[in-house]
């Protein structure tokens, strides 16, 4: 009989890299910022680019979060998500144009009130549309990915054409409310006010979403549903209702993102949602399908990288996002923060 192998407890701490590994996705955002700082010659332009990158990332996050949650919860892949962005933008911008006097006045309170009204109108419209979309288009094709992709794509085309019928085929130009025009100067860098507002709103929404998901009962049910839906249903919760709620909330968020994006670009078209979908897919894939945190990190990375590269090498900006996605998928094929399914 051979002697049992000796077990000597190792007291040595794991290496720094090993300990950092789980935090790697979170660290990637500051790493990109630092690389940007090193690559961009002037600090003030770096600051401007970083703020616009963060603003862009936050807006993409707002638009993408609903889609990733819907997928995580019900395994429904909604290729028509982009249409909520367009509808939100058109409704919101119509409200803002109707409230022209309020937006043209140089008072911050009136401007914010007009924005608030526009956002409320947009979220209500897209929330309602999301509810209808879920009822009519998505519900009959649960569990069949192939059909989901086809049918939601069809839905996207139809609603997009309806926008053209209702608002006309021309793009609509919009100027930002008076108080949000222009820029503030900070450390020699010009920071557009609107972008700062967008960063603040995005951050607030992310924290609110995190709070709801982590610290409330409904959030607990949603997270449990993502991991093991059958078990949650066996415990007596009607997951279908929760799912419809998440779908509506996700659509409303997309509508909100649409208004913000429309004001950011200062022009809206019926196709804008479809164009944003490409960005959203990239973000959702690199973040890990179904993960809100991954989506947030992915959105910030895409926003920052896009802005840095557009500054350094304008032609390469078109494919920088694809490059980022390829790199991330080579590193983690399931995305940065894969969602663990207990199935």
């Amino acid at each position: 009989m051979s002697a049992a192998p000796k077990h000597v407890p190792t007291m040595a701490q794991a290496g720094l890299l090993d300990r950092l590994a789980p935090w790697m996705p979170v660290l990637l955002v500051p790493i990109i910022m630092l690389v940007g700082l090193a690559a961009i010659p002037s600090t003030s332009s770096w600051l401007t680019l970083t703020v616009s990158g963060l603003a862009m990332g936050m807006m993409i996050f707002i638009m993408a979060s609903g889609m990733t949650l819907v997928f995580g919860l019900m395994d429904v892949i909604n290729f028509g998500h982009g249409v909520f962005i367009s509808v939100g933008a058109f409704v919101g911008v119509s409200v803002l144009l109707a409230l022209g006097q309020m937006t043209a006045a140089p008072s911050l309170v009136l401007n914010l009130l007009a924005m608030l009204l526009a956002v409320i109108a947009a979220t209500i419209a897209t929330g309602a549309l999301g509810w209808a979309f879920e009822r009519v288009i998505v519900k009959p094709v649960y569990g069949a990915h192939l059909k989901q992709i086809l049918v939601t794509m069809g839905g996207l085309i139809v609603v997009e054409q309806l926008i053209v019928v209702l608002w006309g085929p021309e793009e609509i130009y919009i100027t930002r409310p008076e108080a949000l025009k222009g820029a503030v100067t900070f450390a020699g860098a010009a920071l557009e006010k609107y972008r700062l507002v967008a960063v603040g709103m995005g951050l607030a929404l992310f924290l609110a979403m995190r709070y709801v998901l982590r610290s409330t009962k409904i959030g607990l049910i949603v997270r449990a549903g993502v991991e093991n839906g059958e078990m949650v249903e066996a415990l007596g919760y009607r997951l279908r209702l929760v799912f419809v709620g998440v779908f509506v909330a996700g659509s409303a968020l997309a509508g909100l993102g649409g208004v913000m994006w429309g004001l950011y670009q200062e022009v809206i078209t019926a196709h804008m949602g479809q164009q944003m979908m490409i960005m959203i897919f990239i973000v959702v894939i690199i973040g890990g399908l179904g993960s809100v945190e991954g989506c947030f990190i992915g959105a910030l990375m895409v926003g920052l990288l896009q802005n840095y590269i557009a500054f350094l090498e304008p032609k390469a900006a078109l494919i920088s996002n694809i490059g980022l996605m390829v790199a991330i998928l080579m590193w983690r094929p399931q995305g940065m923060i894969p969602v663990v399914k207990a199935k």
Partner: protein
Amino acid sequence: MLVKLLSGDLPRSKLLTAILVAILICLAFAPFLFPGIRSVDTAARICIFILLVASYDLVLGYTGIVSFAHTMFFGIGAYGVALACSHMERGFGALIVGTLSGAVVAALAAFLIGLFSLRVRAIFFAMITLAVASAVAVLVSQLSGLTGGEDGLNYKIPRELTPAFKFGGELLGVKLNGKLLNYYVVFFGALMLFLLLLRIVNSPFGRVLQAIRENDFRAEAVGYRVIAYRTGAACISAAIAALAGSLYAIWLRYVGPDTVLSFEIMVDILLMVVIGGMGTMYGAVIGATLFVVAQNYLQELMQVASGAVESVPLLPDLLSPDRWLMWLGILFILSVYFFPTGIVGRLRQDD
């Protein structure tokens, strides 16, 4: 002989057979049956789209993965011919080089995309192809030095394929010129590649693809490498789509982002597959024929209908020919719900 040519995959329905034979005859003698520039152009478009849709059906209907990059592959083939023709000496050499390099590049691109997405989840493929295809479309319209940008490229094809080349006089009232030869290049090219596709889906390889579509987990358990088969199908389909693109480029003598790369074409292809019937090559024939004919002639009908309801509010807007895409979208959703097997599936059921 005929059974062998169709790889043993017969239409299995009398009505379907009749329709297919009618389409084949119409296409084979299109320049003589329907003389006129527009109708011959429609016939050539039908040939090319049958091939394009059939190659798409190989991934969507037979393998069960959704790709949104099919127009990208189509465009790669078209631009391959266009670039070769504009940079090389005028002649058949340029056509062959352009066609082959287009097919190889398309297959390589499909291989790379498949490598990144198919090993994880089949739905990743749908999203990644959409992202890559749109990036390529933007890239093509931006790199105007190479691709001509939004304006596209005009180029010269061998003189033997242009209307300027005349041989003999007239046959059945049709002038025998290079355009006629060009049509038959398109027709026989599409026919041969279609038969090749039919051969592929009825081979052991094709059977494995269908097994994967039905249940990928079991297929893997039986011992087939699902990823390898899926990637293989994507590559073959991409190469054939590129060849269809090359034929289109030879026929049109022009390529541009709108004609070969736009997302609208992708939507058209999806509709043709679904309406014709997924998972059967004959669906592609029916779907493409129906769709191209409707696209060319139904829009005029919508114009008339729109004019007829002019006094009613909103209705003229809904019926205007520009809203053609919306009605297609509705038709598309309804056919996915109610006729998942498409026209071909319906016809086979009735027999």
